[in-house]
């Protein structure tokens, strides 16, 4: 199953987002963002399974929880930016 990355501007925002997702029954792991995706250094992201990706975005939108760019993790190690 493919994994999606939801970029967050800080660890705390990632935690806030993960907490909201958990309450909504969506599992998301907080982790440091891949180096190539953090133009300003030291970023954080949520990793979500493909089948919960859109549900996760919906929860964050309804909760007014900001997030950054969205990426799909490819099997070859690349990250492809995706639209909402």
């Amino acid at each position: 199953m493919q994994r999606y990355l939801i970029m967050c501007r800080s660890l705390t925002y990632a935690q806030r987002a993960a907490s909201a997702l958990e309450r909504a029954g969506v599992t998301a792991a907080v982790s440091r963002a891949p180096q190539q995706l953090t133009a300003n250094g030291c970023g954080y992201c949520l990793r979500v399974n493909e089948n919960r990706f859109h549900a996760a975005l919906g929860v964050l939108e309804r909760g007014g929880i900001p997030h950054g760019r969205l990426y799909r993790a490819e099997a070859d190690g690349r990250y492809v930016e995706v639209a909402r």
Partner: protein
Amino acid sequence: MIYLDSAATTLQKPRAVAEAMSTATGTMASPGRGGHRPARLAAETAWACREAIARLFNFDRPENVAFTMNATHALNIALGSLVTPGGRVVVSGWEHNAVVRALHALGAELDVVPGALFDSDAALEGFRERLRGAECCVCTHVSNVFGFVLPVYEIAALCREYGVPFVLDASQSAGALPLDAAGLGADFIAMPGHKGLLGPQGTGVLLCSAPVRPLLFGGTGSESRSRAMPAFLPDRLEAGTHNIPGIAGLLAGVNYVNRLGPANIARRERALMRALALELKKLPGLEVFLSDGEEAQAGVLSVRHERAGSEELGEALGRLGVCVRAGLHCAPLAHESAGTIETGTVRLSLSPFNSPAELRRVPGLMRRAISGALAGA
């Protein structure tokens, strides 16, 4: 020992506080400094603490719960964010030096609201008369000397009416009285972790609802390529390594307070304090500063003797195993307001861990302490 100095620091804590600190010391590293398990555990603890604090104070933005070293640190951030040199700042007559000295250092003009002890109406009227055109307003929720509960919800509403930013010093109320941040609508609420929240020394909290200016600059584990501090909270205020053992202990303390409920804590402390005060009033020569109405005073009580000095009385009580604080309590403004600046007072302050049985012993010990202080023993 009878510990009655909880307005300075609560000494007795839930057992879980020390356990959490010990566990954190052995298992947790630094939030945001790595993806490994010790860093993750630290991050989870910090976030859990922010959420628990937000829940306790009905504050809807846990990410705006910033950790500080103590309430003084939190107040310095808040005031440094709002006050400019020469700006007029309206303060109650019951403020601690954490407010007064910080404002002095910022070059602010202090506009002190006069009013008698335990007179909420006079305090409110004084704020109403002074707020127009002020740069900022600062008010303590509870006087650290007399336990006077200021009408802060009404003062905050006046600030909104006049467009004046409002800072609440919740040093004596956090955890000891209900405090509804959403209902209050303050720009900043500052509090220590080591008093009513039952956490360890070296912890404090600032609830931020307005733009902030950092006091410290450094690494945050975020936006590392930028030379400027991040614009977002809590990173903007949390440069350097966190006090994770302290935050873990604070979380345990806040969880305990959340379970007991601040309203229940306040009810119990007030009842114990008033029963104690009524007994102390029977002692000859002892002046007891007790409000007429129960709501105007929290679990903090000041007394002074007509002949025995406050410091001497405090020392004598200490020798008898009663821990109190004597003198000016870092709040000379409050003593000027109450007319006790020359004598100071002896302060007895409660926590959820004081028992009725130990408090029943205090009047007798106070009588002995007075005799001892008068005899110079």
